[in-house]
């Protein structure tokens, strides 16, 4: 596969220049920090710090429940692999308003950088296509971020963006880890919108 040269820090803001336009849900660890920095831990984002594997189906629940809002899932490769079948569930439901972004550093950054399956033979773009996603894009360099920004903004979903990034520290950002507070914050902001 292509060499990965993309630095994760600063990538998401180039893909989502107007983050207020979306509802976000993230998995745990590094991608949650990258995403929280994107919205400054905004009320339109629900981030997790546990329940590994839950992000995609949570995003599906949001997308089906709020069909007039654009929903984005941001999750790491470990998170994605843990509940890879949820991509089939999304493909079958085919919500037009859902985008899944996998921030793939090739391993488990949170626990010491141990290699993951995508460092070996797993190709998540082919996996997503195989499950039935018709819109799939792989980006692994700074130059591809413009394509990624166009991809997430164009036409109907569901979409799968495989964002392959170099190993390295995620964005430095401290977010609220209290799930009760974050749930109430999100619900209140959603109702008020």
């Amino acid at each position, binding site marked *: 596969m292509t060499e990965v040269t993309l630095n994760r820090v600063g990538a998401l803001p180039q893909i989502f220049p107007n983050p207020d336009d979306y509802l976000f849900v993230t998995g745990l660890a590094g991608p949650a920090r990258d995403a929280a920095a994107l919205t400054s831990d905004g009320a339109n984002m629900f981030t997790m710090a546990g329940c590994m594997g839950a992000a995609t189906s949570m995003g599906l629940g949001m997308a089906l*429940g709020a069909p007039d809002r654009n929903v984005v899932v941001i999750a790491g490769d470990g998170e994605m692999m843990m509940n890879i079948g949820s991509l089939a569930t999304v493909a079958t439901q085919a919500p037009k308003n859902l985008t899944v972004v996998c921030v793939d550093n090739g391993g488990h950054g949170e626990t010491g950088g141990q290699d993951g399956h995508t460092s070996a033979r797993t190709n998540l773009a082919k996996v997503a296509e195989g499950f039935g996603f018709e819109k799939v894009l792989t980006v692994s360099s700074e130059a591809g971020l413009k394509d990624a920004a166009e991809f997430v903004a164009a036409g109907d979903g569901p979409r799968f963006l495989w964002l392959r990034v170099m190993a390295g520290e995620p964005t430095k950002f401290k977010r609220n880890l209290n799930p009760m507070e974050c*749930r109430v914050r999100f619900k209140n902001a959603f109702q008020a919108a």
Partner: protein
Amino acid sequence: MSGDVHPHDPWSRALFKQFKAAGVSLFSYIPDAGNARLVELADADNEMRTVLLTTEEEGVSLAAGADLVGQKAVLMMQSSGVGNCPNFLSFVKGGGFPILMMVSMRGDYGEQNPWQYPMGEAVEPILEAMGVLIFKVERADELEGAANAAINAAFRGGKAAALVLSQKFLGAKAF
């Protein structure tokens, strides 16, 4: 069996009506004989959405996502699927997400398949360990009250609630 009435049709119709009246619009499931008719009824209703899952835990987070945008979901599974859910049930204790489940039992009254017993016996301890309230149905006349209690516990009480349909109620499968 075209022309015949599905054996679970009468109670499934009644329960579907209760779920609908409670505002449930998303029905997620792993197929089981005990939820088959209910899924058909939801599929036939334009206001309802059925979501076939690949594993039961997906349905827990799907319900949490629906709650974030003000919608209500029910997650339907066979008892063996309860074993796939505990980690995601953290949403309940940690975040107060309302989660309504319907569990059709195997491995209890009259079971003939030895593979079903271990999880059948573990359903209640697992649900209790994760803070899920159990509303058990053994007789047909218990269904309406138990379903109401589970619906209220979830959507008014902000709890996780499981409507557990026993094999005494559903009937055991012959092997």
